[in-house]
């Protein structure tokens, strides 16, 4: 199963199941840490978020995601593999827009490496989100 970094629309439970199922292909790992990013129905100035529309600079996402993986794998010698999947296009509130799976020899390193991977994704990947409100108006959000 080839995983590209970006997929159109939400990351479905079925797709997540397939990604997790892939972990059984390895026997040199003892722990896997998974992070799921979900679209939250925030209320901003009295208006509720219905969905987020993600856009990305695709060529640069690939380069930066490759670099994140290299950084994590060199920093955590126990980390064996890293999967990153991010949505583009419209993802409704409640749906999943980010999937990160870090596999390591031991749980502690899996958890720490996963956490750092997510932090780097927030800072490094050229992805933007437009919040679409229930009245169809919209606004741009940036990471803090």
């Amino acid at each position, binding site marked *: 199963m080839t995983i590209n970094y970006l997929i159109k629309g939400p990351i479905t439970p079925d797709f997540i199941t397939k990604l997790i199922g892939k972990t059984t292909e390895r026997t040199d790992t003892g722990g896997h840490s998974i992070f799921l990013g979900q679209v939250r129905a925030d209320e901003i100035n009295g208006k509720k978020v219905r969905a987020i529309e993600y856009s990305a600079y695709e060529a640069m996402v690939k380069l930066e995601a490759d670099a994140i993986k290299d950084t994590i794998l060199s920093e955590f010698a126990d980390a064996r593999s890293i999967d990153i999947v991010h949505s583009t296009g419209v993802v409704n509130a409640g749906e999943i827009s980010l999937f990160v799976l870090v596999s390591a020899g031991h749980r502690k390193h899996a958890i720490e490496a996963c956490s750092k991977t997510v932090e780097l994704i927030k800072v490094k990947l050229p992805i*933007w*989100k437009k919040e679409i409100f229930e009245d169809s108006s919209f606004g741009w959000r940036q990471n803090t």
Partner: protein
Amino acid sequence: MQVKVLFFGVLVEVTGSNIKFYSDAKTMGALKFMIQDDFPEIVHYSYCISLNNEIVSNDRILKDGDEIALLPPFAGG
């Protein structure tokens, strides 16, 4: 010579497009002035600039076929 400029995020709305070609911009600094002339509103937005997929902070000489992108603050995750 010609370079390609890509706009992302809120800058797509500010400029009304996601791509524009510029001729005769010899440096990044000169290109920035040309973009600001075309889209004066852009000065009110923060963004960084990439040249051929690499973020650059200082001025650069441009060459034919370069791809420049204007990147507002990232918001992935």
